[in-house]
């Protein structure tokens, strides 16, 4: 029994560590991700049934690669496939690997080194010809091996609909011949933001306030893993490092975002002893390396803002002047509604609530944006305008679909009417 358990555990371990590496290599010659997935799935099945009997090969990854390649070739050689499509040159160039009884043995050429082509795979997933809405899901599936069912649950989409979108995207990649390559230094600046966005997307769905909480928590961890992988593969790209830093800081505070009763806790009321010091330290390291490269960008600025907030764990205070500078810079680089509302909130901290309200008034298109109304309600309260504050609270609450945030706003609303007092009601975008 021990042998079986060991072999199974080993197969799962290999699956987790190298799924994306193997898919990248298997799909690159033909662009057929679906076939690569089938072939690798088949190889894993053979591993699960064969390893407990024959023992775990010396290089499990190479074994899987060889078995999967043989399977790919069988499919390409099959009559059905030949009728469906002419045998492609790229297929004929598939490396001839040993077909002996123990692939992955010492004489197998693949044992030497399996190159890491996951970066090329990530660029394929976020290629301009792939619909933006499916890029994150595609990356979760091809790089991390998530099943459509798990991705569908995290996005709260019916499984059939998600599976169909993924199949369509893969067909497009194959038929449009999207190349499995890392863009050249000239193209990189134009292509990298989409990859960063797709990785960030795996983290950002965590913020959509409708349930399925368990899947979302696990996806936040996967997003951090993807970001760290990207930072490892692109060590000289400051924004890749910045994204990994941002997700490190944000993940560090995950445990402090809600109270024991599930109550929402805003950033400046969070108990810093609940923050993960290890993740904060890794954020600091990444951010330092990013800054040393001397090219500022959106994710580095967002990470720097997080870094200032996290410094409260050391200093006991929040440096609002630093936040003012960083948030203003962020609005210049990426003028999203969220960033502009953040800036108004920070201006209120440094220059008073009236200045913050003036900044809020200057934001166009925020009529239905919940954080804008929550911030307005808070600033009106701080400015002593309780009548307008009550109206803003009512509007903010009507736009809030998750219960903890609504309860939090209701408390702030009651406090502003003097029903009972609380330390400092506040809501920041994305907190």
């Amino acid at each position, binding site marked *: 029994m021990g042998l079986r358990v060991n072999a199974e555990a080993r197969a799962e371990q290999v699956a987790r560590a190298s799924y994306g590496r193997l898919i990248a290599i298997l799909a690159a010659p033909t662009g057929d991700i679906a076939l690569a997935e089938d072939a690798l799935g088949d190889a894993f099945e053979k591993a699960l049934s064969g390893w407990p009997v024959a023992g775990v090969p010396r290089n499990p990854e190479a074994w899987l690669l060889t078995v999967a390649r043989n399977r790919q070739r069988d499919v390409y050689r099959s009559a059905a496939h030949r009728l469906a499509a002419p045998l492609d040159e790229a297929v004929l160039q598939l490396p001839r690997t040993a077909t002996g009884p123990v692939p992955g043995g010492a004489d197998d050429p693949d044992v030497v080194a399996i190159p890491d082509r996951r970066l090329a795979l990530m660029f394929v997933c976020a290629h301009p010809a792939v619909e933006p809405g499916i890029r994150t899901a595609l990356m979760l599936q091809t790089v991390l091996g998530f099943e459509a069912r798990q991705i569908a649950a995290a996005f709260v989409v019916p499984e059939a609909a998600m599976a169909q979108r993924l199949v369509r995207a893969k067909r497009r990649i194959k038929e449009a011949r999207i190349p499995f390559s890392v863009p050249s230094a000239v193209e990189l600046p134009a292509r990298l933001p989409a990859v960063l966005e797709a990785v960030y997307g795996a983290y950002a769905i965590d913020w959509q*306030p409708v349930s399925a909480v368990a899947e979302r928590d696990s996806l936040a961890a996967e997003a951090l893993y993807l970001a760290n992988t990207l930072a490892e593969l692109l060590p000289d790209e400051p924004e890749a490092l910045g994204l990994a830093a941002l997700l490190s800081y944000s993940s560090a505070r995950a445990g402090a975002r809600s109270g024991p009763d599930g109550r929402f806790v805003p950033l400046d009321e969070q108990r810093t002893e609940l923050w993960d010091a290890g993740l904060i330290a890794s954020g600091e390291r990444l951010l330092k390396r990013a800054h040393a490269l001397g090219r500022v960008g959106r994710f580095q600025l967002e990470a720097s803002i997080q870094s200032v907030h996290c410094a409260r764990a050391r200093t006991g205070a929040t440096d609002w002047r630093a936040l003012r500078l960083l948030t203003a810079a962020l609005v210049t680089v990426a003028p999203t509604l969220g960033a502009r509302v953040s800036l108004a909130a920070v201006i209120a901290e440094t220059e008073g609530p009236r200045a913050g309200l003036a900044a809020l008034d200057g934001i166009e298109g925020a*009529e239905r944006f919940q954080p804008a109304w929550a911030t307005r309600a808070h600033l009106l309260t701080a400015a002593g305008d309780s009548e307008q504050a009550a109206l803003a609270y009512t509007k903010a609450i009507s*736009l809030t679909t998750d219960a903890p945030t609504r309860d939090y706003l209701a408390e702030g609303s009651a406090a502003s009417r003097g029903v009972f007092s609380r330390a400092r009601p506040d809501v920041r975008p994305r907190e």
Partner: protein
Amino acid sequence: MQYSLLIQAFEPTEEEIPEEAMEPMKVAFDLYAKELDAAGVLVSADILARSDVTTTVTMRGGTLKVHDGPFANTREQLGGTFVVDVPDLDAAIAWAQKCPAAQYGSIEIRPSAITFTGGQWVYA
């Protein structure tokens, strides 16, 4: 202000949706209705049976006509309704975009003009 959130979606045949695929959507709709309820904005919620069990009745031609099936056979069918009582359209949009059906169909937001409450018709 009362709004009906009308789910309009392509109606698959029964064989097209296996029971296990339905389960996560049931959970999603359950959570959605409970969130609406917790927010105190839910008036009523209905997920309708398949459109082919519809019976259509009309006296328009002067005589009673009872017809088996929906009034019009279209690709998209009314799949359910959530009636919500919220302050304005912005709030209705905020809730409609969270409806699980928005992921595979569309949600028509239609304000009520008059509602029958407390034994009489009340203008909105």
